[in-house]
């Protein structure tokens, strides 16, 4: 990427509006990204210690570790490589820069690390994004071909060096460009367990070619403010998109998630599911928009958004929306948010569990129905464990103390 392109992206970032909706202003959902310069160069000892700790705790190996967005460490030969930023042809990115997202422009302006996964065989890739100081956003290109079934699991941990960063929030950002082609499938899971002074943004720009599938799972359990965007197009016939967003907001967290799917060919399928719980004084906007273009006959689009609010100052806005330009399709959308159902609590209490445990069971059950859709067992179990701990304690950041929950029943998983 040329400096000229980066400067254009930086200017565009400043010019592009966040969102015009007044709710964003009212509930302080807007946030500006700091002018990071990548001064927090990676200290290998930090990420090595963290990797060892996770290995002990989760018995989990990472294929790549990205530290502070300034350094990427490829630890295994798994069809993944780091790209040389100087060789990236910015002419191919021009459309994306001008038609994508404000924070995509920031990524183009700032990123120093780009990684690429290009697979023609089935496989699982685990990536750790570790941000400790003045970090930069990362570009991540994922491509699955020739019928490959590729699972990418990302664990985002942000643990700031408090003395150094006490006056400003650290950014944890990642922009994905995902292409599934030739009857292949990509399942991309992003698990966020950042510290409280991390601002998080993730973007997934995706395209499914003929008979191909993209699945995304977002599990947002940490961070100060979170902004996530899914923009995925079902370009080829018989292609499919599934998005699955799971959110647990507490304290004064702010969560802004938008999923846009577009059906552009015949017999496509797009399903967007969101489950969100807002506790304390957390606030969130969950928008899902499905577009079915003219000519996309026999396509199916579904949006389901469900929320629980349990806190006097907690808010959640669920905004399901559709635009349908083809008549021969199936399209449904629903959104419902409510306090915890008292009947459920009473039923559980009548068996002998106290109100606190009953609430915990209802909330974890509500989210675990969506967790059950995730195929990677370690992601499910770590997420579930973190959810239990955070609901139980009414908050808390970072990794859960107890990650070994192999005896817990999760819908869709094994009954143990």
């Amino acid at each position, binding site marked *: 990427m040329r400096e000229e392109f980066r400067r254009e992206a930086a200017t565009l970032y400043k010019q592009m509006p966040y969102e015009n909706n007044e709710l964003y202003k009212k509930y302080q959902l807007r946030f500006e990204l700091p002018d990071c310069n990548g001064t927090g160069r990676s200290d290998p000892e930090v990420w090595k210690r963290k990797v060892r700790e996770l290995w002990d705790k989760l018995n989990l190996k990472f294929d790549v570790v990205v530290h502070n967005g300034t350094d990427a460490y490829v630890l295994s030969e798994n069809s993944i490589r780091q790209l040389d930023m100087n060789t990236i042809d910015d002419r191919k990115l021009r459309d994306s820069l001008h038609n994508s997202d404000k924070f995509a422009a920031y990524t183009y302006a700032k990123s120093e690390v780009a990684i690429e996964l290009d697979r023609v065989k089935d496989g699982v890739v685990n990536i750790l994004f570790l941000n400790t100081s003045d970090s930069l956003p990362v570009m991540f290109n994922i491509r699955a071909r020739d019928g490959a079934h590729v699972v990418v699991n990302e664990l985002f941990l942000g643990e700031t060096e408090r003395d150094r960063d006490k006056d400003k929030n650290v950014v944890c950002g990642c922009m994905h460009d995902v292409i599934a082609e030739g009857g292949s499938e990509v399942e991309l899971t992003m698990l966020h367990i950042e510290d409280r002074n991390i601002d998080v943004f993730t973007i997934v720009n995706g395209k499914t070619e003929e008979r191909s599938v993209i699945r995304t799972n977002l599990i947002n359990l940490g961070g100060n403010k979170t902004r996530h965007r899914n923009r995925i197009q079902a370009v080829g016939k018989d292609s499919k998109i599934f998005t699955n967003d799971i959110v647990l907001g507490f304290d004064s967290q702010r969560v802004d998630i938008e999923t846009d799917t577009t059906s552009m060919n015949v017999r496509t399928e797009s399903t967007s599911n969101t489950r969100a719980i807002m506790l304390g004084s957390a606030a969130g906007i969950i928008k899902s928009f499905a577009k079915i273009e003219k000519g996309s006959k026999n396509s199916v689009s579904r949006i389901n958004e469900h929320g629980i609010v349990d806190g006097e100052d907690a808010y959640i806005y669920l905004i399901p929306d559709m635009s349908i330009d083809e008549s021969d399709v199936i399209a449904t959308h629903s959104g419902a948010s409510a306090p915890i159902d008292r009947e459920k609590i009473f039923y559980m209490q009548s068996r002998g*569990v*106290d109100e606190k*445990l009953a609430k915990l069971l209802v909330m974890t059950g509500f989210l675990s129905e969506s967790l059950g859709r995730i195929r990677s067992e370690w992601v499910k179990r770590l997420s579930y464990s973190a959810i239990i701990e955070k609901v139980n304690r009414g908050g808390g950041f970072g990794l859960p103390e107890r990650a070994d929950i192999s005896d817990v029943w999760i819908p869709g998983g094994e009954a*143990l």
Partner: protein
Amino acid sequence: MKLEIKELYASIGGKEILSGVSLSVNTGEFHVIMGPNGSGKTTLAKAIMGSPGVDITRGDILVDGNSIKDMSPDKRALLGLFLQFQNPVEIGGVGYVSFLRSVLEKRTESTVSTKELMEKIKEYTSKLQIDNGIVGRSLNEGFSGGEKKKSEVLQMAVLKPKIAILDEPDSGLDVDAVKVVANNINEISERLGMGLLVITHYNRILSYMKPQFAHILYKGRIVYSGAADAVEEIEKSGYERFTGN
């Protein structure tokens, strides 16, 4: 254990449903409460268990002489009360077995062996003729009407209460299922020496059960308390003699 309901007045959403109900049940006793629709039977059951939707305006509920009126439902359950719900709520994402294990661990304050619990559940899914697949599902979710009723009886068997209030354990069941449910309730209550307070519309289930006492609830008041012979009379002539209508 002795459960006493003394001159109980209760309302839902400001509307009085119970207007001075008095009743007493001991462990080992079998009581049946009958009454036409809307007479307050389910409200009485929920009031005993402490439903937050039922406001007790006067009177008291006692267990072994101590008031439980202000006690939370879980504490009432830990005393030994059990309510079988007429229509149990579905709770997605909460596993049937893991829920029962959580409950037992709370009750015993010790770790419960999943294997032993599974064996107990398997014993009763067999006795109650329920598909064993419910153990891999969320609590009450997607259960048929019959499975819900039987699952409640299964929970009663596992939790071993001292007095169980069964709110229409027969409604929605076919003839064969009524017999299966009734026989299991008999077996569990006799083995544990439980007290039973069965609420029902019809005496169909009572063909297989032998209550000692019958009570008829009408417009929020007990209008008959006495021998269980009344059940047969209701079957022949309806509630007319007891309600005056």
